[in-house]
C-alpha cells in the first residue's frame, strides 16, 4: 500500500521540524524505502500502516527513529574522532621511527563505504607525513555502487556537514554545482578496490595500519573470527588495527591485544607475531 498524501505530509512535517530538511512531494519513494525496515521491525506489513500508527501514537522515540532513518544514511568524516587523532599523534610517529629505511606507509580502509574514511586518512597523512616519505591508502568495499561513489569523491552539502572541519572543507574540496568534490591531491594516494572480507582475500603487500571499523558487528562469532584472520594476514607484525568502538577481538582472536593509542585504543599482534590462530585455519 502506497503512502497517502496526508501520511507523506505528516512524515515530511516531522523531518522538517526536527532537522530542517525539506522532503518535497516526489520523495515518497525515499520515505517508503527508508521506513520499510522500521515498519517490519514493528511487525507491520506496510509503511502506510507504520505511519498511521506513528500518527495515532506519537512517541518521541519512534519519531526519532523515523527522522534518523530519513536523514542519517551518510557516514561522517573523522568518524569517532579519536582514531584519527591517534593516527596523527601516536601511530604514524611510531611507524616512521620503524620505517626509516623504506620510508613508506601503507594503510587499509577495509570497509570504506562512500569514501569518508579513506579521504579522512588522506587528510591526516597529508598534514603529517614529510614529503620525502611515501604513503598509500587502499580503500575496499564489497559494494560496487559504494566504491563508484567513493572513487568519484563527490559529496552533497548534507554529507560534507557531517564531521568535516570547515578548514578541511575549504582546503581539500572544491564546489561542484550543489556538491563538493575532493581535490586531486587528496585523492592521489588512494587506490579503490572491490573486496569481500568474508571470502578469501587477494594477495597484497601487508599494511602498517588497518581500519576495520563497524564491520564485525554485522557478523556472527565464527565469521568474525575468519574475517579477523584474513584481515590480520595482511597486517604487518608490528602494525596497528582499528576496530569500531563497539567491537573487540576479545574472545574471538587471542593473537591480538588491545593497546592504548592516543586517547583511544587499537589492537596489535601479541609479541609482534603474525601467526595463524589455533583452531581457526582458513578453509578458503
Amino acid at each position, binding site marked *: 500500500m502506497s503512502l497517502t498524501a496526508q501520511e507523506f505530509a505528516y512524515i515530511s512535517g516531522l523531518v522538517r*521540524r*526536527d*532537522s*530542517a*530538511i*525539506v522532503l518535497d512531494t516526489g520523495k515518497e519513494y525515499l520515505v517508503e524505502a527508508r521506513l520499510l525496515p522500521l515498519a517490519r521491525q514493528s511487525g507491520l506489513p506496510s509503511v502506510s500502516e507504520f505511519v498511521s500508527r506513528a500518527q495515532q501514537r506519537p512517541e518521541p522515540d519512534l519519531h526519532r527513529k523515523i*527522522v534518523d532513518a530519513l*536523514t*542519517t544514511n*551518510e557516514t*561522517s568524516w*573523522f568518524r*569517532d*574522532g*579519536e582514531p584519527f587523532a591517534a593516527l596523527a599523534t601516536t601511530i604514524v610517529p611510531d611507524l616512521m621511527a620503524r620505517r626509516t629505511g623504506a620510508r613508506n606507509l601503507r594503510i587499509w580502509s577495509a570497509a570504506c563505504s562512500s569514501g569518508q574514511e579513506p579521504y579522512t586518512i588522506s587528510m591526516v597523512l597529508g598534514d603529517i607525513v614529510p614529503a620525502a616519505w611515501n604513503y598509500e591508502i587502499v580503500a575496499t568495499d564489497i559494494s560496487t555502487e559504494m566504491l563508484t561513489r567513493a572513487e568519484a569523491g563527490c559529496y552533497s*552539502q*548534507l554529507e*560534507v*556537514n*557531517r*564531521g568535516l*572541519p*570547515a*578548514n578541511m*572543507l*575549504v582546503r581539500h*574540496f*572544491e*564546489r561542484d554545482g550543489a556538491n563538493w568534490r575532493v581535490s586531486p591531491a587528496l585523492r592521489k594516494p588512494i587506490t579503490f578496490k572491490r573486496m569481500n572480507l568474508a571470502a578469501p582475500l587477494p594477495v597484497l603487500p601487508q599494511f602498517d595500519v588497518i581500519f576495520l571499523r563497524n564491520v564485525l558487528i554485522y557478523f556472527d562469532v565464527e565469521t568474525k573470527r575468519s574475517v579477523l584472520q584474513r584481515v590480520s594476514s595482511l597486517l604487518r607484525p608490528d602494525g596497528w588495527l582499528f576496530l569500531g*568502538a563497539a567491537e573487540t577481538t576479545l574472545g574471538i582472536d587471542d593473537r591480538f591485544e588491545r593497546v592504548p593509542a592516543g586517547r583511544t585504543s587499537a589492537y596489535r599482534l601479541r609479541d609482534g607475531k603474525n601467526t595463524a590462530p589455533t583452531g581457526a585455519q582458513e578453509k578458503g
Partner: protein
Amino acid sequence: MHAMVIDDSRAMRLILKRIAGQLGFEVSEAANGKEALDLLAAADNPPELALVDWNMPEMNGLEFVTAVRADPRYRGITLMMVTTEGEQSQIVRALAAGAHEYVIKPFTPDAIVEKLALLGLVPNGAVA
C-alpha cells in the same frame, strides 16, 4: 553550559534550541547580531557557544563574529556559523573573521552534534 542561538528565523531558532537543549545546554536566543550583543553585554557570564546565522537584519552574523572576536571579554565563546551561505569564499571569510566552525543549511541534527564534538563541547557519540 550555555549556548546562544542567533537567527532571524523563529523556526530555525526552535530547531537549534531543541538540539542544543538535548545536548544539555541552557539556551538563550536572539534574532540578530545586535540583539545578541545586547544580551551578551547584559549577561553575568558569556555563553560557551554561539550558533550564528549569517543573513540577519540590523547586524549580520559575520559582523557579530567580528565584534565578538574583537572583545576580550568574549574570548571563551566558541562561534559556529549555521547558514545557507555555502560558497567556499564565504566559509573562508567567516573562519578568517574568527568563526571556529561552519555548518551549511540544511543540516541534520547529527551534523551539529559532530561539529560540537570536533570543538570539544560535547563528547564523541553524543546524541541530540
